[in-house]
């Protein structure tokens, strides 16, 4: 299978705090990889490094075979091929849903407004948001806002999607609708790297699960193996705590 994403020896520190300490990871095209690990284990930072929102201190990142950490790459062009969805949605509050979705296609890709809106409405329809196109984000529920954020990322037709704990800020009853959207994306062969606390979901949707602790990958493997028979003691401890918290 072709390679979607590869990280080689990625290091990242904030001041004296080393958040990523040598990450090697590759994701095949169409593969869904879930990152699990405690808060502060480096999941979000890893995703932000892949999208170049944070520059890496050392190491290399390849997307679709091309090194994006090389000098002289067009950061904006790279970002257009990678969609990222944040925990806090980060919709633009001063724009209607439709404008949130069409802003980047119009300004970054240069699509004419009519075409961008046509495509945006099709995407919104696909994710059950057709009647919300002209609403402002603060009129939507959390689940609707997060689905809008996913649509906004998809509008650029990315080859890779990064999801950063997209259900963590949602009320429990709204989690399912967002997970359904991700399921649908996974089924459509989108390459995805998902940081999540939803262990049951990771188990169901992931082709591979990666456990991060202290800025390194402690263990990775198929979900059945990671959740049923983790090899590493740290993985077992982490999953034990999750079970005790009744989250698995």
């Amino acid at each position, binding site marked *: 299978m072709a390679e979607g994403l590869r990280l080689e020896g990625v290091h990242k520190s904030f001041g004296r705090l080393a958040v990523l300490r040598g990450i090697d990871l590759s994701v095949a095209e169409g593969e869904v990889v879930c990152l699990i690990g405690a808060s502060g284990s480096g999941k979000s930072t890893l995703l932000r490094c892949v999208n170049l929102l944070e520059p890496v201190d050392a190491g290399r990142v390849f997307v679709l075979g091309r090194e994006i950490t090389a000098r002289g790459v067009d950061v*904006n062009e790279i970002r257009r091929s990678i969609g990222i969805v*944040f925990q806090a949605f980060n*919709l633009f*509050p*001063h724009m209607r849903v439709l404008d949130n979705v069409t*802003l*980047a296609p119009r300004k970054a*890709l240069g699509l004419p407004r009519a075409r961008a809106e046509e495509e945006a409405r099709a995407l919104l329809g696909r994710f059950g948001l057709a009647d919300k196109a002209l609403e402002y984000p*603060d009129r939507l529920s959390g689940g609707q806002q997060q689905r809008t954020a996913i649509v906004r990322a998809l509008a650029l037709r990315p080859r890779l999607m990064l999801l950063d704990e997209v259900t963590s800020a949602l009320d429990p009853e709204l989690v399912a609708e967002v997970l359904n959207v991700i399921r649908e994306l996974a089924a459509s062969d989108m390459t995805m790297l998902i940081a999540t606390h939803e262990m049951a979901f990771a188990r169901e949707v992931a082709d591979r699960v990666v456990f991060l602790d202290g800025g390194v990958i402690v263990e990775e493997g198929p979900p059945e193996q990671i959740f049923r028979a983790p090899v590493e003691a740290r993985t077992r401890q982490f999953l034990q705590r999750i079970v005790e918290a009744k989250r698995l």
Partner: protein
Amino acid sequence: MNERAAGSRGSRILGDLGGGGSGRSTALAIASTVVVFGVLVLLVVSSPGWPAVRRSFLDGDIFGDSFPEIARAFWLNVRIFCIAEVLILFVALVIAVLRSLPGAVLFPVRMLALVYTDLFRGVPTILVIYILGFGAPALELSGVPRSPMFWGVVSLVLVYSAYVAEVYRAGIDSVHPSQEAAARSLGLTRGQALRFVVLPQAVRRVIPPLLNDFIGLQKDSALVALIGPVEAFRQSQIDVAGSFNYTPYLVTALLFVLLTIPLARLTDWLIARDRRRQLSGGA
């Protein structure tokens, strides 16, 4: 529904009066207003010097005679601050954006913007007008306008842009960095993120303090008179000198108040609207 709850709280000034409060509190508000103002008026009117003050400040005939001329001169004030406001909105935005630029290479640019705001907020407006109004034309450079009106407006633009730039900058800083991150993550350039995502939110938030600065500017348009142009204040001085009566000053004061009140109420309304929006759960 939250909007209605906030609306029924009524305006700060009118208390329950405006929002359909109980009849008793309305009556109370009216009664206390009548008493307070009645006492104040009585105090002034019963003072020993009142007859003389009334003659020299409240002469009905002189009021009527000087009003048309002062109102005509006031039109110059209106033109001064209208031109100045448009220029300030633009100049201040440029300065604010320059000050917010990141990166070590751009340090001199940020520094320059900082020096500008420090300088023009520090020097009294009246001095800037004197220095530029008399100094700039005295250079006798070809192509440099000599008109005091021109330099008066330039002075006001320079001084008020320094204030308004700081207002803009507060607005820019108040937009959470995650908004820019979201815009950049969609492949927008830094400039596009600023223009389409950060600035629209920043400007919306600072409209009330911005209008507040403009109320100050409207009054300061009278300072331009110091270097020559006959605007309302200068015209009233001329009238006073001719009649030995101060009523024309009152005419000018009235005109300024009439002009600033709508802007002040608009500012209040915008602030109230923002508060309602926040209460209704908006971002």
